[in-house]
């Protein structure tokens, strides 16, 4: 381990602790790195730890909207990191189911253990104080070690709670059924859905994003290991080549069809749009009001859709037809109604097909429905037919899941549907952020 542990937590997460995962006592002493980062922007990562807050902006000071490898985003804050954070290059997403024997205490301790571990990992530290190398010879190391020598790489870990955490077949599993917001329910069926439970649902989820895929995988691997016995991975997804941007400095990326999509995404700096579309407001219908306070206020809803892209048929489609399907020009991403990428599309004069993707998905044709999209391309190798098993792992944050439902219903006649299939679906409530010493989910279980 090349890092210097900056936190006061060295003791509680001692080397020989046989507890599952990381001692929850460690949560009470969340790292100073995290606290400092709240004040000074980014802290520094594994490879350069010990220098203290570096004063790098969230973009790490490098050009082209690309964060420096040493960028470490604060884990604490009003909202969880990984939503408005400038979209990192790589994703490892995992949905978990709780063990049938897990108790409410197990869930609380797991969320505390995850919070503590994530607060370290995101700062470029090993998962515990003894980490990969400083434990006893006779014990497996706490940390799996593949991120040794790697900087924080902009890692964020975002924790979500699925509908089945609250209730399964009418059973109040952990005494929180009454606090399930009505909006936190499985998405309704949509025309053309080809969903598989293999890529759908989950009691909990972890979204790990980083600019180095090894750092993202390291986070999910170690957090899953902490969960063993209490929760197990239901499904997971690796993603690369972010398909959207949340920072003006980032160029709009292209999806695997070669198009710029999501040009008009909500940016992390657009406080008004975030408040209007992303953050759940106190007292709102989706804030988790039930028998108690609005536990989800300041949080959001995460919709995941695994969308398979039928690349071979698409690649045999003429350029003009491809542009008609999207409603955009392929070269710069301008709407077919003219202008450049950022020109607002003009609908109704025939230049943009009414069944094109941009027409059907655009807020102006969906009563203003807007989502913060954070999806990634994926390639899971080759399918049994010898075709690329590839597509878009769509992630969107909204303050009301109905926003997604309305847009997705509009897309039922999308020309693009000939080339895509929705094969996975999940929804999670993403609790608000925490102050140092807190834990994700504390407002729900309080």
């Amino acid at each position, binding site marked *: 381990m090349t890092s210097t542990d900056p936190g006061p937590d060295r003791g509680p997460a001692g080397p*020989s*602790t046989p*507890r599952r995962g990381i001692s929850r006592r460690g949560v009470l002493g969340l790292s100073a790195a995290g606290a400092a980062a709240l004040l000074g922007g980014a802290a520094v990562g594994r490879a350069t730890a010990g220098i203290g807050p570096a004063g790098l902006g969230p973009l790490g000071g490098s050009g082209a909207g690309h964060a420096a490898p040493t960028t470490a985003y604060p884990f604490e804050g009003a909202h969880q990191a990984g939503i408005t954070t400038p979209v990192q290059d790589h994703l490892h997403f995992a949905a978990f189911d709780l063990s049938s024997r897990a108790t409410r205490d197990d869930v609380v301790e797991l969320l505390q253990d995850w919070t503590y571990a994530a607060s370290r990992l995101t700062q470029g530290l090993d998962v515990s104080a003894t980490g990969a190398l400083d434990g006893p010879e*006779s014990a497996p190391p706490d940390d799996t070690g593949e991120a040794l020598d790697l900087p924080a790489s902009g890692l964020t870990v975002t924790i979500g709670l699925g509908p089945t955490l609250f209730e399964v077949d009418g059973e109040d599993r952990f005494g929180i059924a009454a606090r399930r917001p009505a909006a936190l329910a499985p998405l309704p069926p949509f025309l053309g859905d080809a969903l598989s439970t293999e890529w759908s649902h989950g009691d909990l989820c972890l979204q790990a994003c980083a600019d180095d895929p090894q750092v993202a995988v390291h986070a999910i691997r170690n957090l899953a290991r902490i969960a*063993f*016995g209490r929760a*197990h991975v239901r499904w997971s997804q690796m993603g690369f080549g972010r398909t959207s941007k949340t920072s003006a400095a980032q160029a709009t990326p292209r999806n695997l069809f070669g198009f710029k999509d999501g040009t008009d995404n909500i940016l992390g700096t657009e406080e008004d749009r975030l408040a209007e579309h992303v953050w759940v407001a106190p007292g709102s219908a989706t804030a988790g009001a039930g028998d108690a306070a609005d536990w989800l206020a300041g949080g959001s809803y995460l919709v995941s859709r695994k969308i398979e892209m039928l690349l071979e048929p698409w690649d045999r489609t003429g350029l003009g037809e491809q542009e008609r399907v999207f409603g955009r020009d392929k070269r710069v991403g301008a709407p077919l109604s003219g202008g450049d990428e950022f020109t607002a599309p003009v609908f109704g004069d025939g230049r943009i097909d009414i069944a094109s993707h941009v027409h059907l998905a655009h807020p102006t044709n969906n009563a203003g429905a807007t989502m913060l999209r954070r999806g990634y391309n994926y390639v899971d190798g080759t399918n049994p037919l010898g075709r690329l098993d590839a597509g878009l792992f769509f992630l969107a944050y909204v303050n009301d899941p109905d926003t997604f439902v309305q847009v997705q219903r509009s897309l039922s006649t999308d020309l693009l549907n000939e080339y895509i299939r929705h094969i996975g679906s999940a929804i999670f409530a993403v609790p608000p952020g925490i102050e140092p010493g807190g834990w994700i989910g504390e407002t729900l279980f309080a």
Partner: protein
Amino acid sequence: MTPTRPSASVPAIVTVAAAAVVVLAGCVPNNPQSSGTDGSGAASGALAVTSDDTTCEISAAEATSGTLTFDVANSGTKVTEFYLMAADGLRIVGEVENIAPGASRTLTVTVQPGDYQTVCKPGMIGAGVGRADFTVSGERVELTGEDAELKQEAIDLYAAFVKDQVAQLLPETEAFVDLYVAGDDEAARADFPLVRAYYERIEPVAEALGDLDPRIDYREVDAVAEGLDWTGFHRIEKDLWEPAPGALNSDGETDAFDGWTPSTPEERAELGRLLVADVTELYDFVHSDDFTTFLSDQGVDWISNGAIGLLDEVATGKITGEEDWWSGTDLYDFAANVEGSKMAFSLVEDLASRKGAEGEELVGQINDGYAALEEALAEHGSLTTGFVAYSELTDADKKQLSDLINALAEPLSKLTTTVLE
């Protein structure tokens, strides 16, 4: 595995007292003449055991917890052994061996409340004779012995467990081979997974013995890869479950008949002879001083690591259905591996739970993990009533078992360091 688990909740650490009596501080043997010191009427002093070639009589079927003394007299014609076992019939709480005809030896052992079995093993082979229930009541006895003593006891008991399993493996293998050589394939198929259970419970021992495990337990793809003559259980398995034309081997690409033909009667006789010879070699080894030396050299951490090693066997081979490719009896091996793992764990359980609250919590997690895994496995059968074929497991079944193995193996991986602390 039996659902009653005195071994898990009421661990008993013992003194193996054939040659030397280890006296645990605070545990003084009761006066052999006294009886029913707690007023229950149960014996708590010396118990008389008489063993001949077919019986194993004990003077009382009940006792009070504490240090018990078994005076074992051999009135038979063969050298005999006496075992006090947990109710599961696997875990040995105490044993005394090498009791010559006409001789007597004494077993002194500290026994916690719970259900047990007593059994004698004249001839030092087979499942034993006169197996009977033995109940211990009373209060739990605090152990105050030093770690070093407990570690040596764990090693001694593990050695006894291995000897017991191999002593049953050998005659079972001989009977199985007889059926196979005689061409009674139906009976041999029924025997196959049951015979293997004795082997699978002690797999780490066999695997530590160089070329013995390859000769006894290699799959065809393993033998081919290493350029070995293919012998042992799996070679016989393929004769008993002859592949359909066009079937593929466990590598998923080699034709089952590529380099293989069903064994002739002569070949069967030779393969049977080799298997019995190899198992006999294993029997001889574990009953030799070399084995005792081997285990003592390895130390107690070899036992706790063996517990995790057996689970790894399950996680890598059995859950994928690669072990018993032709018979589909992987779940029998699975269950036996888990039993062997739990047995090894139970021997060091007290050492771990003595390490403060964290040790106790770890032991609790591990016991919960075994219970959950056993419960899930029981949905698919048992070693006594039989398991479903591996092919009948759904992907969801396999994932459930795999999740439970992960849940158990993670705390189990911390056992060694806790024991050695």
